[in-house]
């Protein structure tokens, strides 16, 4: 209950309004400062086209791979309770808390000195390759996907499945015909957020795949490279594009969830 002019409510409202204004100003500044022409030119630029294509390819691949793994894992975690589950939880959440650079270093050690020789024999190159971009993005985004899918599955009453069983479903049928369709908005929302994370990923990718122009150059890499080279307008243009993509992602997410953001 709030009355007009009540000091506490007024202060709380004012702080929120001030913060919103600040955020609006920061983002509007980015949009306003970049020249519109440079964005139009951008799509002619071969480096941008390479980065855009690489970013889209790797982020979509990483998101799909993460989804494939996260659906069974999320379902398992949503439905099973066992002693020591908190350890499994922590392990799967560690990459969320860990700085991406550290994840990247760990991946570099794992796929380099540790697994490298075996992979080389099999003819697979991960370190400093576009494949490494996918692996790094997948590794960093996977825990987010698992967490959001898990929430989506947990929100499906287990008795929905039990009823399906009494109606003649095998466990897989009840998952496929009941749980997955009901959890669909949450899955789509989670995939959207996962994709946004892979698209913006920098730290782990930089460590595992390296920051190599026109080779492992995703859009965030392109921003970083052009900023360090002093090409501010190119960086600004890409940043503007990514800001617009983020707005789109957020809108898509809200549409999927049709509720407040849960992730």
């Amino acid at each position: 209950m709030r009355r007009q002019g009540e000091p506490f409510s007024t202060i709380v409202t004012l702080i929120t309004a001030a913060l919103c204004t600040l955020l609006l100003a920061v983002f509007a500044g980015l949009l306003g400062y970049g020249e519109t022409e440079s964005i139009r030119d951008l799509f002619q630029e071969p480096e941008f086209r390479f980065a855009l294509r690489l970013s889209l390819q790797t982020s979509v691949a990483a998101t799909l791979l993460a989804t494939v793994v996260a659906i069974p894992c999320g379902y398992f975690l949503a439905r099973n309770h066992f002693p020591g589950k908190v350890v499994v939880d922590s392990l799967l959440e560690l990459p969320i808390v860990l700085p991406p650079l550290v994840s990247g270093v760990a991946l570099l050690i794992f796929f380099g000195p540790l697994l490298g020789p075996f992979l080389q024999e099999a003819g697979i190159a991960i370190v400093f390759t576009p494949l490494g971009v996918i692996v790094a993005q997948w590794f960093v985004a996977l825990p987010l996907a698992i967490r959001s899918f898990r929430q989506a599955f947990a929100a499906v009453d287990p008795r929905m499945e039990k009823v399906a069983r009494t109606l003649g479903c095998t466990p897989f049928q009840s998952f496929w015909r009941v749980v997955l369709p009901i959890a669909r908005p949450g899955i789509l929302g989670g995939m959207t957020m996962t994709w946004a994370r892979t698209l913006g990923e920098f730290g782990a990718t930089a460590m595992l795949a390296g920051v190599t122009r026109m080779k492992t150059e995703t859009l965030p890499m392109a921003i970083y490279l052009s900023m360090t080279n002093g090409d501010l307008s190119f960086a600004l243009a890409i940043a503007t594009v990514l800001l617009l993509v983020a707005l789109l992602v957020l809108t898509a997410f809200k549409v999927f969830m049709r509720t407040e953001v849960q992730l």
Partner: protein
Amino acid sequence: MKRELLLDVQGLSLTAGAFSLQSLSFQVHRDDYLVIVGPTGSGKTLLLEALAGLVAVEAGRIFYQQQDITAAPPETRRFGFAYQDSLLYPHLTVRENILFGAAVQGRAKAPEIRRRLTELAEVLAIGPILNRHPERLSGGERQRVSLARALLLQPPLLLLDEPLSALDPQTRAGLQQLLRHIHRDEGVAVIHVTHDFAEAMHLGTNMLLLNEGRLWQSGTPQELFARPNSEYAARFLRVENIIPGSIRWQDDQRWFGTERSTRLFGPLPEQGASEWQVGAPSFLAIRASYIRLTREAQTESGPESESGPGPRSVSASVPALAEGQAKECGWPATVTEITFQGSYVEVTCHAGDCWLVHVPIAHWRSLHLQQGETVWLACQVSDLHVVPRAGQETSMDDGLD
């Protein structure tokens, strides 16, 4: 005609989280409507899920039509199941929800399934809502759709977990009629968990009382309500008068002597005699509606007590009870509280012990009773029901020689 044995449960035991079932045995025949009551946490839902095959059994056997189905998965048992929440699938229409079981088998479009859907839609009055989505239905509609979904493939047994408890009283009454109808006309046996005693009374042909995973008492609902077999059952089934005392032997008959008065009630009927040990601390358990309240004492008989205005048993000379042999036992009491309760008046009376009596409205109006007045209470001696006192309380002083 021999009744067909549908389900035979033998020594069923299992633990799931905080709940457990301990060595439950009972039978369900094809014409049974079995009601299960028990406090929260007594394992009622767990029992239904175990019967449906939704939780694994640890010990004991379940036989369905002589076949051992203890280890069979739920999709092969195909008992109908409905929970308190209707749990309709939100991504399907009402029609698709009902046809779900048939769709799993790829038979959703078979002519016999279509006929069955039409039939169920009529019986359950859900024809007009078949194309709607569940979120747009009322609570009663949802529960009817949930029943239709469970009944589509004509299960021989319907398991209901408090199916009506989330509904308002009017809707609930309508669905009770419907369940009765389904039980009789579809010929489906029903096991129905409920916490509503009126519902249990209304629907059940048999009743189980569960407590802490154990079978406490079974019988018809009427038997359980009138003659609970323990202090626990009497309290759980809300017998209003549970008077402490003990059984005494006098004039070659059993009588009940209360702790807080010198009065003897009886003679006790013979039927329960074997369990009712003379001298053992026990309770007299009588429902408030079994006691009649009048202004004047009626004809007396029976032995006088050792002291004071003793026990009296009254031959039924009351006009309203003039049906021959019903023997009565009466005693005087003082009215201490009067509460109007809609369809009856609850009168609290004091006579050493405290007695609750429910007086029908029509009778009440002729009484013009005030607090503090002395009245005459009476009940049929066949209603005098004694339950043993729980073990931990035997240390209490029970005033016996």
